[in-house]
């Protein structure tokens, strides 16, 4: 089992962090609501990658979590949630587009005082 060591996860973790940062930057910077939604998907999948990396290369040999499968389970939950979130998000975007004829998030500022 020497092959499976935690330090071997770092490539995956770096890649996950980069993807997460890209997603976050997209959420904050992009103006198109659909791109923002896609960026959120990117962030969620970056997290998924991190879960899987830790599932494959656990930090502790005999984890109290019992088995390595807990990481995989979390990923499935995230995928399910992301699907639902994408559906709700797209529905909201369509509803907003109907009233504003725009998908530019800068124009969605009715939350302010």
């Amino acid at each position, binding site marked *: 089992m020497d092959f499976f060591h935690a330090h071997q996860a770092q490539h995956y973790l770096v890649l996950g962090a980069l993807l997460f940062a890209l997603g*976050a930057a997209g*959420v*904050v*910077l992009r103006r198109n609501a659909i791109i*923002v939604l896609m960026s959120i998907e990117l962030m969620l999948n970056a997290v998924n990658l991190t879960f899987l990396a830790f599932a494959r290369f656990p930090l502790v040999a005999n984890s109290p979590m019992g088995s390595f499968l807990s990481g995989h389970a979390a990923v499935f939950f995230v995928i399910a949630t992301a699907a639902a979130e994408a559906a709700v998000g797209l529905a909201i975007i369509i509803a907003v587009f109907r009233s504003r004829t725009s998908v530019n*998030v*800068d124009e*969605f*500022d*009715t*939350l*302010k*005082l």
Partner: protein
Amino acid sequence: MEVSWLHLVPLLPLIGAAVCGLVGKWLPKGWLYAVALASVLLSFLVGLRAFLGLGEGVQLFHELAFNWFSAGSLRVDMAFTFDRLSGALTLVVTGVGFLIHVYSVGYMDEDPGYWRYFAYLNLFIAAMLTLILGDNLVAMFVGWEGVGLCSYLLIGFWFTDEEKASAGRKAFVVNRIGDFGFLIGIFILFTQLGTVSIAQINSAVIPLGVAQLAALCLFIGATGKSAQIPLYIWLPDAMAGPTPVSALIHAATMVTAGVYMVARLSHLYVSAPGVMAAVAVVGTITAIWSALIATSQNDIKKVLAYSTVSQLGFMFIGVGVGAFFAGTLHLITHAFFKACLFLGAGAVIHGLHGEQELPRMGGLRKYMPSTRTTFLIATIAITGILPFSGFFSKDEILAQALHTKAFSFLTAADPAKTDVPFIRPLLVWLSTVRLTWLGPLIYAVGSFTAFLTSFYMWRCYFLAFSGEYRGPESVHPHESPPVMTVPLWILAGLSVVGLLLGLPPSWVHGTALEHWTWEHFTEGVFAPPRGGAPGEFSPALGFGIALLVGWLGWAGSYALYFKRGLLGDEMLSARLGPVRRALANKLYVDELYDRVIVRPLWALARGLWRVVDATLIDGLFVNGIPALIAWVAAMARRFQNGDVQRYAAVTALGVAALLYVFLVRS
């Protein structure tokens, strides 16, 4: 003797005031007059009954109406004392007050505010009687403030005229300055002697320091109320009120309250000989100062006003040299003849449709014979010419000043307190100066003032009643109705009969008149002055000099004004131009006070307003704190701009910061 009806004396006019003031507007005029006059007349009758009840067995009547308030060792009663002094003054106030009420019926009949006027007048009588009868200083102070209030209300009676309204305010403010001293005096007496009762103060042994401080503070109150230097300036302006008010309040009664207070507290003042000297000196300076101004005034009421200030100065000379009976005697006779003079002036003004300037009068003896005769009698009385009442009262004061022993042991400075830096040699020298010459000096100045009094009063008389009428054609002078002339005649009669009060006891010894002389009548009421009363002195020489100055004043005035009229003034002006101009401008005292006191106070008040109030309190506290909150809120509002992306960015930054803190730093 303890009685239960004394409270009626001040209460009756108070009821009259309440009726006139609350429902007078809707009462028929006749009823209102009946209420106003009857309340004062009844008060007079109660007072008269009490006065006749005083005798060998009964020295005074006393009534404890109710306990006003008690706190700790302080007990203040609403209680009244009716003795020979307060009794006589009660009669003067209600008697002269009643006559002036009668006169006012004629004078104020056409004024729409007549009901207000009679309410104030009744209220004044009630307050004045409280002042006179109050058996402790606090009750006296209630009356003292009450008369001040009525004075203010009546000076500014025609308040739509800005000048008159401001004259009322001036009187009130100047009086407040004096009242402050009066109040401090009461506090000193209470803290040091533990009582405010006049009877107890007058029988206490008072330490010199306490007596001097308290007497001085109370005298400051007297200078305000009785219009003495330095607070006399309100009285000439007070002539803005209706003329009967000037007669009642600003000549006969209220302004003599200070003299009465000093006489009432004679024991306290005798215990403070230095203050006695100050009282006499202030009285002397005031007397000559205002007599000088009176010689050059053209408004008939201003002449009489300065004359009143001057005569009040005489009264303070009397009480200041320890001759309390002489000061209060002059108070009473002055109430008669000065009320008569003022009412006469009022009749003249009434008959000339509001004209007050002497240059536009003249020759009125033809048109108003009653007014002229009574004015003449009162003029003779005030100038101190026999056989009228001013003669004995004024000359008694001057004779007492000449012979007084009250100052013989005084020095100009206290020998025990010369250790003051810089002026020590001066104080050491002053402490060796004995004031034995003060009495004769006061006598000399007072006699010269008597000459001036005679001069300006005769000038006033000649300019108003002699010669030819100088007013405009359109004004037809006419005599006043009987309701106004009858009080004039009664007061003129009193100005003559008042002479009896002042007869020297040695002249009437053993006759029925003896009991009626004021000196005999008030025996035992006043404390004897330090050094004892002056010994027997021959009155003849003093009377001779007094008669001489009286006649000299008449002669000077006669030579200048009888034939020439206004030309007399021009001749005087030609000789004494700048002096006379200064006198006509009241010696610029108002202007001086304006520069030295009023304007700096204004500047200070404006500074306090701008800096402390507007900037500090309003700017920093009242508006500053909300402004700070608004600023913080404006800052915070920037974050809530509705831009979800910025919220996300801020959240991300916050998470990054937390991660940095927890993961990297730790």
